[in-house]
């Protein structure tokens, strides 16, 4: 695997991982989706 592909896959994996972790944390801690709050 070329250096570019290695770095690309590492960083993309990291990005997807961070988003997934935040999504899970968001679901746990920020549960209420109140549309049209006001």
């Amino acid at each position, binding site marked *: 695997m*070329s250096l570019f592909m290695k*770095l*690309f896959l590492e960083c993309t994996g990291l*990005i*997807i991982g961070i988003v997934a972790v*935040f*999504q899970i944390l*968001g679901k746990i801690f920020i549960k209420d989706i109140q549309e049209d709050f*006001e």
Partner: protein
Amino acid sequence: MVILVIVLLYEIVSIGGVSLYLVQKERKQKKQQAEGGDSFITSNRDLPTAIVGVSLALAVLGAVHVFGIMEMAWGMGAVSIWFSIAHVTLLCVVCLATGRWVRRLKVSTVPELIEKLFGKKIAIVATCVLAGQTFAILSMEVQALGIIFNTLTFNSVSIQMGALIGSIIGIAYVIIAGMKEVGWVNLINTIVMYLGLIVAAVFLSGALPGGWQAVENHYVSTGQEFMINIFGAPGMFFAFGVSNIIAVTFAQGISQMGLQSAMAARNEKTIIRALWIAAPVNGIFGIFTMTIGIAAKSLVESGQMVVANPELAAKTAGATMLMNYLPTWLVAWLLAAFLGAVLSTFAITTMGLGALFARNIYTLKKPNASEAEQTKVIRIMIVLSGLVACVASASLPEIVNGAVWCFAWLCPIFWNVVYGLFWKRCPKAAGIVFAVSWILVLLWTYTPFPAAFGLSGIPVPYVTLAVSIVLGVILNAVLPGEPGYFKERRSVSA
């Protein structure tokens, strides 16, 4: 010159085409709408997921992603990607928290949110600081526009003239239809940008002498393995990565430009879904510029490429490599993509400035100003701020340092918004935290104060973060105040 003509043609066709289409569409819709609403800055809050996603991504993808990461990769290698990854955490915070809050409260500017929490006086102070921070970022984007045009014309056009040309195109990006125009041009730019980056990456793999293997071999054989490791040398991740995550997330997470697209989203679910578009579009861009930076350095160090001015090698090696190893049409494509990225940030910052002035300053003098009048003021401010930024950009510091300094100012606003929404609304506590944080930023920047206390190595964002959390928690615990905005609402509805 051929490259410049191609790039300019692309910008004129994409921006002009979208503007014409939106103007025609608006004319048809005008008869059906009794009133315009705040359509210019929030697009009547009707933007779909894809547009919100790319607009959030491009709003915070500008000069630093293009030039800053290439420059940083020269000095520290692959660890420079953490500047880009810091923006992924920022977009997570915007899409799952702050962006949803501003959309839920239907505000059009950040000071409107602050006014709901802490009253008008604190909101006016926050407006001034937000406007200053937004203008500083705008000036840096204008500086980057000048550099792009200077590169495109091989020094024929000066950086100052390039900044002026770029500003005029940037104003066109936003002036006609506001947020809706920015959103649709962003979508086109994102597609063109990523296609260009993919084609360039494939082409570069074949064009580099010895391919990527030679780049890897160079760093391994010279004992610089850290250059191709995203965690870098020992300590680099904590010194660079973590500080960037703190500075970017807690500043841009509450900035006008960072939240403008979320305010215009159709609903909260749109913002949550947009995260899956915004985060990859923003984060992956940095991988390309980082790899360009480390490849360029290996070519210079191994003597296979020469840069015109060795003292400026960190800044110019990436662009020089692209010019040397890619065909003209692909260089034009790539620079058009870079230009699009910088222009999108320029557009949203000028609009943010216009919105801050029209909604939070102009209305102090004319509280009953109609939406049409406010839109006119926003348009005037877009033109004025764009042109004034041209003048300011001529005397700016290094882009990355400047950006981090600007971010430090917004950290106390972020934390006080969190306190005000979920814990306690205490204007006195917010005012003291703002004042102490901002005085410390000035002392840190312009006086020997940090050196006198042996703290000169501590970056400014850490200082404002510490003050916002420590002083903010103590003052809110001690001083009286009303319950947090959401807390109060919840207890009322229960």
